[in-house]
């Protein structure tokens, strides 16, 4: 481990070289939008919202999986990045059926917040109106796959923290869906411990508690901090363990 100095948005910083650019930026109150990242879970670099421009590199790099280097000059909020982030959120909006007015997490939804933050007012691409399986067979929870953004937080928390590995992704491309066990109804997935962690980490209304009504459900992910500190962060997530 070594200390490096770098510049983020014009601010000179020093940081440890095993931290991610995202961690460093957040320590210095520089906001970078994220969706698939969650403190306490492995990083997959899938949502592409945290992409940064690094001087001297012709490729955009995700903040969550990029490590700092001596003398690195990073920009987190250029016009190009803002535009791409807005387009990514637009793509997500077009991919699912996100009717906020009838969603349990309305006003507490990370996707909704991202739309506000990135200034998305209008989706220019046509909506795809998927018709995926909504499953209420579990005694306490519901999964509405049409509201799923495939961030795989549920897959990771179930595998990495709960150790049950109920969830995984089936299919490929636009047909990807989250499945329980062998694509069985959640209520009959025997590996599920009903711990509810997946529901708490889900950024949208795809995973919700039964019995709540529209705009009632608030999610909190703080619990992960305490579980993870007990395991000495970082060590237990090896490459082999990492999910998706």
């Amino acid at each position, binding site marked *: 481990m070594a200390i490096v100095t770098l510049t983020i948005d014009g601010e000179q910083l020093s940081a440890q070289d095993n931290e991610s650019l995202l961690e460093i930026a957040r320590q210095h109150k520089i906001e970078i939008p994220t969706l698939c990242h969650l403190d306490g879970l492995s990083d997959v670099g899938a949502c592409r919202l945290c992409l940064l421009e690094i001087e001297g590199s012709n490729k955009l790099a995700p903040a969550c999986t990029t490590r700092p280097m001596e003398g690195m000059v990073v920009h987190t909020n250029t016009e190009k990045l803002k535009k791409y982030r807005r387009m990514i959120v637009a793509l997500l909006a077009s991919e699912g059926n996100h009717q906020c007015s009838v969603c349990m997490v309305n006003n507490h939804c990370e996707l909704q917040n991202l739309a506000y933050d990135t200034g998305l007012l209008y989706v220019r691409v046509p909506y795809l109106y998927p018709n995926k399986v909504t499953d209420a067979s579990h005694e306490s929870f519901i999964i509405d796959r049409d509201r799923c953004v495939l961030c795989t937080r549920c897959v990771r928390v179930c*595998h990495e923290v709960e150790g*049950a*590995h*109920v*969830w*995984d*992704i*089936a*299919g*490929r491309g636009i047909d990807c869906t989250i*499945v*329980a*066990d*062998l*694509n*069985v*109804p959640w209520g*009959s*997935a*025997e*590996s599920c411990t009903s711990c509810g962690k997946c529901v708490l980490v889900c950024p949208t209304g795809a995973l919700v508690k039964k019995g709540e009504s529209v705009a009632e459900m608030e999610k909190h992910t703080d619990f992960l901090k305490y579980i993870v500190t007990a395991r000495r962060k970082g060590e237990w997530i090896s490459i082999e363990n990492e999910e998706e």
Partner: protein
Amino acid sequence: MPPTTTTPKPHPSGDNRFKLLDRAITKHQSRGDALIEVLHAAQGIFGYLENDLLVYIARALKLPLSRVYGVATFYHFFTLKPKGKHTFVLCTGTACYVKGANKIQHAAEECCKVKFGQTTPDDKISLVQARCVGSCGIAPVAVLDDKVAGKLTPEGAVERLMAWKNEKDEVTA
């Protein structure tokens, strides 16, 4: 949706095919990272991957069920449904596309009354698309029951399909 069969089927006595599968699993020391190899072996032995089989494999390799399902559905080579008696694999690679594979596609779909990726209701013919079978020199190409047919015409394809269609099921009748 089939019922949850989380208890693995005990070795169904009399089904020698499981013995073959066990041999493939032992060959890879029941290692989880041999999942794709084992799925290949299972599909070779059973023809397709039904749910009971996936459960059996998951238990044998000590893998989560959802991971096995995820892998089996990620790769196009694996099929979870039984195939028809005959398969017509049309290459839709670039060379075949440039030489008019789409005309063959329409003719075959017209002839079998099903789309590519489906099997005729009488389970006789499965129409399958392949992304490139690597025989671009003799495009357009189709693979008919494991035999490569090159420089295919729509008429030629229909002729072969009709022969399959009109085949009498003497054995099963």
